């Protein structure tokens, strides 16, 4: 057991020494791995934030009924009556066009633009929720409401959010593919590095085996090398991401201030960062394992 631990310590030390011995090559490898990982991780970061944003929006599905601009109080009254009598409607409220404009001015930071308008561009509107949260209920209501007089447009508010959600899901699949591709690049980089190392250390491997080294003994330093290089690449990716978030947030703050809003990208969470490091170390290990398994058979007895 002690000898086993000692051997692992030896393999780690050996791998670290070899990483440090060729700082340029190791540095470039780590850079490649870091860049390859930071790309999908960065996209994942942005997408997951957009996704949690849309989840908040889709919690309360409702329907908006916009009236035509020339609708008068009588039209409003008749629509209100229709809503009151409709079996699918749970709750509804009326938003007069003046209040809609005032709300818009308050919330979106567009007051300068809106003040310059000669007349209110917004129509009167009703916002209604269904008796239940089934999408079909609101869809049925939408199909009825569009036929009422003086109704210009009916919109399922949850619809755009669901569309966005679906788009984000598409994006997530895309980064999954991107991630897989770049991960295999990481495995390939490690595979080749280890292959070169095995070639340059051929004598050492051969002699070690001749004087009784077991295969795990020979393999271990290479596996540690791959794992440590992957880990360093993961750290590099984390650093790249943190730096990017920092720089982007600075510009984003300026942009958000112009829209009198506040929005910022959160950095990688701890657990996500740990998964990233673990993942990159595992990929490095895998690349090394493939390479060592592929190349060590040359040293077997015939």
């Amino acid at each position, binding site marked *: 057991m002690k*000898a086993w631990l*000692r051997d692992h310590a030896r393999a780690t030390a050996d791998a670290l020494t070899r990483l440090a011995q060729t700082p340029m090559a190791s540095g470039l490898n780590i850079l490649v791995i870091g860049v390859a990982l930071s790309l999908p991780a960065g996209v994942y970061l942005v997408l997951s934030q957009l996704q949690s944003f849309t989840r908040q929006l889709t919690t309360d599905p409702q329907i908006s009924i916009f009236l035509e601009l020339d609708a008068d109080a009588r039209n409003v009254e008749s629509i209100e009556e229709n809503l009151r009598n409709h079996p699918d409607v749970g709750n509804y409220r009326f938003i007069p066009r003046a209040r809609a404009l005032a709300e818009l001015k308050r919330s979106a930071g567009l007051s300068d633009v809106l003040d310059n308008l000669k007349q209110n561009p917004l129509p009167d509107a009703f916002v209604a929720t269904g008796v239940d949260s089934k999408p079909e209920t609101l869809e049925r209501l939408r199909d009825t409401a569009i036929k009422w007089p003086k109704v210009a447009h009916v919109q399922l508010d949850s619809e755009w959010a669901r569309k966005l959600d679906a788009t984000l899901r598409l994006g997530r699949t895309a980064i999954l593919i991107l991630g897989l591709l770049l991960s295999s690049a990481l495995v390939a980089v490690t595979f080749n590095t280890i292959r070169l190392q095995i070639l340059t250390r051929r004598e050492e491997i051969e002699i070690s085996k*001749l004087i009784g080294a*077991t295969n795990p003994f020979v393999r271990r330093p290479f596996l540690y090398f791959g794992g440590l290089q992957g880990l360093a690449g993961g750290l590099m990716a984390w650093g790249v991401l943190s730096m990017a978030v920092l720089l982007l947030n600075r510009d984003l703050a300026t942009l958000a201030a112009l829209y009198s809003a506040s929005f910022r990208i959160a950095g990688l969470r701890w657990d996500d960062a740990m998964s990233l490091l673990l993942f990159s170390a595992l990929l490095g290990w895998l690349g090394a394992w493939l390479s060592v398994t592929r190349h060590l058979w040359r040293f077997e007895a015939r």
Partner: protein
Amino acid sequence: MNDPLPRAAGAAAAHPAAVINLNHVYKRYPGGFEALSDVSLTIDAGEMVLITDHSGAGKSTLLKLVAAIEFASSGAVIVSGQNVAKLRPGAVPFLRRKFGIVFQDHKLLYDRNVLQNVLLPLQIAGFDTGDAVRRARAALDKVGLLSKEKAMPITLSGGEQQRACIARAVVNRPAVLLADEPTGNLDEAYGHEIIDLFAAFHRVGVTVVIATHDRLIAEQLRTRAIQLVHGRVADEH
């Protein structure tokens, strides 16, 4: 008793002390070259045996078969009662640890100093560092290289490199020392020194097998010699 074959076939049973036992061993290489044909021999624990071969690659092949570096085409190679061909791949390293091997071309690693070269077998066997260094120094002292422990192998003379190789072979205190042409590239004076070293290890109970074509060794050692001619045992005395 006049027929040598029954003796060889029953050797393992008749000699419980046998360390190495070859039983009708053939070794053919791709291309049809036969390095060993029908070789049967027994080497007992504590023996010192010379294997001479003036004509071919038979003696080196024989050592390789014994250390499971190569496998016989047919016949049985038995080391300490174990059939080498039937070992699991995972057991081969442990078989090799029974041997200290002295290579004709030294096979030292040129990226590390003499002490680190001698430490290698101990690292492989899982010794703790302090213990290993003590043992490595003792082995270097035995071959007279203690003052050169920090030297890189490339700066050593041929004889010194051979002695470093011997130190590496004996550092793990193997039961059997296998040497392939240990004096091959050395002048006579160096050769004598090396042979004296082997004789000294033999005196403390190590089984020593030396493959050589060097007549001087045979004259110097006056011990059992097995002569191979064209891959066959031609003479034994």
